[in-house]
């Protein structure tokens, strides 16, 4: 098998040694432990590793390997490309993790998998979901807004469009305030997939007797004191409805309320 084949199977990008892709290899050695590579690695191998430092390339060179593949999209940070180039080692990077990479190479070796074209490798909807949990304590006014801020910072970091981030942040904040004012505590689930953002706020509290009524603008069960603090103007759920693409509210009196909102990407 040539290094070129490995590159295709893993959809890898070459960081150094493009001219050496036709080199034949006999083994693939997958490890993050460089002492193992030196102890057990056979010559004419390619190293699959998550160790993104010069150490990996040096070890490969010592063990007479022909190439190094960095997994999970890692990049070398300390000039390892030059070292690899100098010692005629191919350096590549793949987005797959170690296990996936091994399976793909194994499939290619035994003909069980086609050599995947780049598009085919991008899993369409195979549950690329980020799943995070948060908790809100009832009456915890001092920390009001913390969960919304956390959710917001995750979405910004992922690169979600700012207009959508704003809608999510507003909806989450309204929801958070509802819990703080009316419930004992709540669990918040954030699910982020390439197609949508879903937030579900599941509280333990007195519940809402008439959900439809609660969805009307201006309807409120807040106390005078809460309203004096600027909360509970009866705009919470209507505001979430306005800002989310899908909203489902289910409630059981005496137990609690689940607010599920979705934002389409």
């Amino acid at each position, binding site marked *: 098998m040539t290094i070129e084949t490995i590159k295709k199977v893993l959809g890898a990008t070459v960081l150094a040694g493009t001219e050496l892709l036709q080199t034949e290899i006999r083994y693939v050695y997958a490890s993050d432990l460089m002492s193992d590579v030196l102890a057990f690695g056979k010559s004419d191998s390619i190293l699959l590793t998550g160790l993104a430092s010069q150490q990996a390339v040096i070890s490969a060179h010592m063990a007479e390997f022909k190439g190094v593949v960095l997994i999970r999209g890692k990049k070398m940070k300390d000039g390892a490309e030059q070292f690899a180039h100098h010692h005629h080692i191919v350096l590549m990077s793949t987005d797959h993790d170690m296990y996936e990479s091994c399976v793909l190479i194994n499939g290619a070796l035994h003909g069980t998998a086609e050599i995947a074209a780049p598009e085919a490798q991008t899993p369409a909807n195979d549950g*690329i979901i980020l799943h995070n949990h948060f908790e809100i304590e009832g009456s915890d006014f001092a920390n009001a*807004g913390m969960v919304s801020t956390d959710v917001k910072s995750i979405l910004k970091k*992922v690169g979600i469009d*700012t207009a959508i981030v*704003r809608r999510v*942040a507003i909806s989450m904040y309204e929801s958070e305030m509802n819990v703080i004012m009316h419930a004992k505590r709540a669990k918040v689930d954030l699910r982020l997939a390439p197609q949508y953002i879903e937030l579900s706020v599941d509280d333990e509290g007195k519940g809402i007797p008439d959900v439809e009524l609660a969805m009307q603008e201006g309807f409120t069960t807040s106390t005078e004191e809460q309203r004096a603090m600027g909360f509970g103007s009866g705009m919470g759920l209507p505001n979430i409805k306005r800002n989310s693409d899908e909203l489902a509210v289910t409630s059981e009196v005496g137990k609690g309320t689940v607010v599920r909102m979705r934002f389409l*990407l």
Partner: protein
Amino acid sequence: MSCMRQCPTQAIRVHNGKSTFSNELCIDCGGCISACPSSAIVPSIDHVENISHFKYKIILPTPVLYSQFDPRIHPYVIQEGLRQLGFDEVVNLTLTSAILTRAMKLYLRSYRGRRPLISSYCPSIVRLIQVKYPDLVELIIPIDVPREIAAREIRMTYPRKLGLKPEDLGLFYVSNCPAKIVAVRQPAERQKSWFDGVHSIREIYSALVPIVNELNKEFDPRQIPDDFSFGVGWISSGTLTRSLRLEKWLVVAGLDNVIKIFDDIETSRIRDIDFIEATAHMLGCVSGTFNVENPYVARANSMKQAEKYDTPLKLDEDAISRQLEEGRFYLENSVLPRPLRFFDTDLEISIKRMRERERVFNKLPQIDCGCCGAPTCMAFAEDFVHGLAELSDCIFLRPHHS
């Protein structure tokens, strides 16, 4: 590592005993300069000597400069001291501040868009919004800062007034903070600053103090010309807002507080506010990094100076309104968000990376010790995902064999 912990945008990393910082995240606040125990972080500043090739030199000091002096010293004496340093003329920026306050009031009155609007005079705040709150960029009031408006006015009128070639006119600013130095050196809101150079208060002060002390001994109030005017400007947090006389306002100072308030604007926790005055430093410009005097003393000085020396200004309201309409007070270029540093442009990959961050973060001790060279465990997890850190940089994840 003090600088790293201090940095409000987590732009600093410490590796092998050396600090490095990310240009794209730096908002020029100067927190690291003040925090460094060994004064290793030095801003690059111009030197007073290289100004001799200008035939007519005008200095426009930040009004903060006056607050560095005892209020018993007349501001005129301070200006006279500056002239003796080699400047032909001293221009007080507070007249321009007063005009811009008026213009801002008019702007706020006719504005119908999204609220709250945010003051634009603290450059670090403008950078903070560009770097971390792209969605709030549209809320920055597009009114320019007094120093540039005043400098442009001088550039437009002085050469003819004094029969000078434009290049013979040298305009210099004195800054109380690194952010304004950067704003003059590498302005983001215009092609080029209207100034030729910028000095720090610290630098000017040491040259100025002996002269001012000498002059003060022989000072006679009769020396003050009739057209002398003085005002304290927007140098402490809240002065601008007070002079705007608005109903629904908020004044916030200190980056930690500002960040919380900006988060609250984004979640819409802050509602029903028309105007926010935000400054990076706790008391506003009087707490700037390059000041010599303690910020609280400087603020007290400034308040006493306002009582003693403030001269009433006669503003031509109609002219201001007309000039605002003509666009005279607006920022030359609009403020744009700086690109956020997210994990990947491909959403799927980015989500995977975020999952990786969460996974790594959960493995970390979450005590933000900083030994790895990143300010927080979260920052470290993010660096790792960006490929900028090794898990073994964390002393808790390091094998114990050594």
